[in-house]
């Protein structure tokens, strides 16, 4: 059992203090701190998540998210801000061409007046249309379900943006500077939420989930949908959850509760 699987990043259980403690203690001692918990780059990773760069992602894992709309406040933008900070996404004051990896969407039923607010980002589909239509194979899905764009192979045709039912992708219209080394971007190519793959691979939570847990409503849960013991799987098994445009049969990895 992986370290990630035994300690799923649930909204309730996750403790950021513990994580930073682990990080600093490991840097000093360079030892495994607890049975079953190994630190990336120090001990040989046993988990599918905290794996070495030379180890391929495993299809034993299907990373996913569950977002509880009862805890998602319309005015709260913590996830969006955290994503922008983490991945170096800046607004140029041109909303039509500015990139957005995650956005808050407000929906309202015109008959009943019931309204909801929810974050929408790349839904990391099991059958991603963006991957199907990409002429060069720049859009791809990792074995663990994370959908990414190879920025070296993307030619900027934007066919994936035409195909995505979630408007999850952005074309980089502007010159970029001060990029984050872990989230390289490129003018003239297409990009979208990476599920913070750099953090997930280092056994950390995506930035949006972490921010939602720490300073937001605690609505976002990240984990392994393939592991029946993970918190996310238990919640999905216990409560009705929905995928956006489930009718398209794309099996998104992002699910919503109370939608």
């Amino acid at each position, binding site marked *: 059992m992986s370290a990630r699987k035994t300690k799923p990043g649930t909204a309730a259980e996750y403790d950021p203090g513990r994580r930073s403690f682990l990080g600093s203690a490991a840097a000093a001692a360079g030892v495994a701190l607890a049975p079953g918990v190994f630190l990336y780059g120090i001990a040989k990773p046993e988990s599918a998540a905290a794996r070495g760069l030379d180890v391929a992602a495993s299809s034993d894992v299907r990373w996913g998210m569950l977002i509880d709309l009862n805890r998602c406040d319309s005015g709260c933008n913590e996830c969006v801000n955290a994503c922008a900070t983490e991945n170096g996404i800046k607004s140029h004051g041109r909303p039509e061409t500015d990139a957005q990896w995650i*956005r808050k969407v407000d929906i309202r039923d015109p008959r009943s007046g019931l309204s909801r607010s929810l974050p929408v980002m790349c839904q990391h589909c099991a059958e991603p249309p963006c991957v199907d*239509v990409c*002429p060069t*194979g720049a859009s791809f899905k990792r074995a663990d379900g994370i959908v990414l764009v190879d920025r070296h192979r*993307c030619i900027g045709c*934007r066919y994936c943006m035409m*195909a995505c039912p*979630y408007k999850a992708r952005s074309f980089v219209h502007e010159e970029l500077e001060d990029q984050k080394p872990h989230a390289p971007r490129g003018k003239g190519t297409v990009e979208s939420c990476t599920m913070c793959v750099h953090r997930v691979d280092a056994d950390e939570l995506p930035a949006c989930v972490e921010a939602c847990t720490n300073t937001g409503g605690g609505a976002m849960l990240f984990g392994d949908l393939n592991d029946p013991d993970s918190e996310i799987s238990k919640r999905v098994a216990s409560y009705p959850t929905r995928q956006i*445009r489930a009718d398209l049969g794309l099996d998104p990895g992002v699910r919503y509760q109370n939608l």
Partner: protein
Amino acid sequence: MKRIIYSEIEGRSAAFRVLVLILGAFVLAAVFGVFFGEHGGYSGNGANNHVVWGVPDVFAMFLIVAASGALNVAIISSVFRKTLYKPLERLSCLLAIALLLGGMMILMLELGRPDRVIVAMLNRNLTSQLAWNFILYSGFITIVIIYLWFQMERRMNRFIPAAGMVAFIWRVILTTGSGSIYGFLVAREAYDSAVMGPMFVAMSFSFGLAVYNLVLLAALRGSGREIGDVLLRRLGRLLGIFVVVVLYFAAVQHLTNLYAAEHSGVERFILRDGGIYTLLFWGGQILVGGLLPLVLLFGFSRRGIHPTGRIVALASMLVIVGAFAQLYVLVIGGQAYPLNMFPGMEVSSSFFDGVVLSYTPSLVEIGVGLGAMSLSGLIVLVGIKVLRFLPATLANSAVDPHFVATSEKP
């Protein structure tokens, strides 16, 4: 049938040179416009993260669809053995190549990273319709060049029907593929439809013949060559039939969508509430591109008045205007209507969810389209000057196999 004589145009007149210069300037303007206009970024373009493909793609679709349609004239001769069309074969092939190269120029300049064209050549994802289309486009040009060579080299003439058949099959697949770029987009209500492929084939017949008619008539007029009413009538009538077929497919497309309640939103948008798109649909696509050409081409034939060169040219121009309207409604209008992520709900966000999106083409985008059309024109102009594409005459006596017989009968 008499032997057909082809000859180059003289191409020394001031008008010819000015035309070449103007077209060349447009091509250069497009290339430099893209290079300098987009050097600092793409935010000056009309296309954005919401309307993803802009006016250049309208031009590209027109040129690519018209390319396969322009080849039809040659196909009618070599595959369907209509000898009347024999003298028109060569120009048909030249025009097809020229139009497709124009379309490919746009597709290349339209990339976010035009410098990475080589990446597209080396990496092909075969589940992508676009990747297939790159193969279909380059294959088309290769096949048509060989087809053309068989026509121009007398020893190879016997292979013309075989080459024509291959070209015919290839072009049907190509145009179906071009339509399927849109037809396969399941997420967008305006597209997601199997009718797109066949409709694009029908559109290619009409748009391609319209361009062919205009180029032929202009080239003949410019070089002082004759065209008889036998051929003219045939070209006009054929265009009219193709216009009807396009209208038929448009009716099927919209009626099918209207019947499905889930698509009624996008249909209301295009047909009634869409502002510029509604205007372009009814005024451009249906009236100017459909009904008016039909009146011009068929309206007076019962009184024994048959279309003249000018009428056929005018009808062809109207068909082309309608074609641009139709493609604008399809490409831009289809994207302007918001994605329906939450059916039945009112949706809003900072990312333009749930609202009709606005699009205004930029100068660079229009320049790219005009530059590509100019490239096609330039290829045809230079082609007919250096090689024998154009028949010396298309007078009734030269093209009509029955002409001599009927006139010699007592």
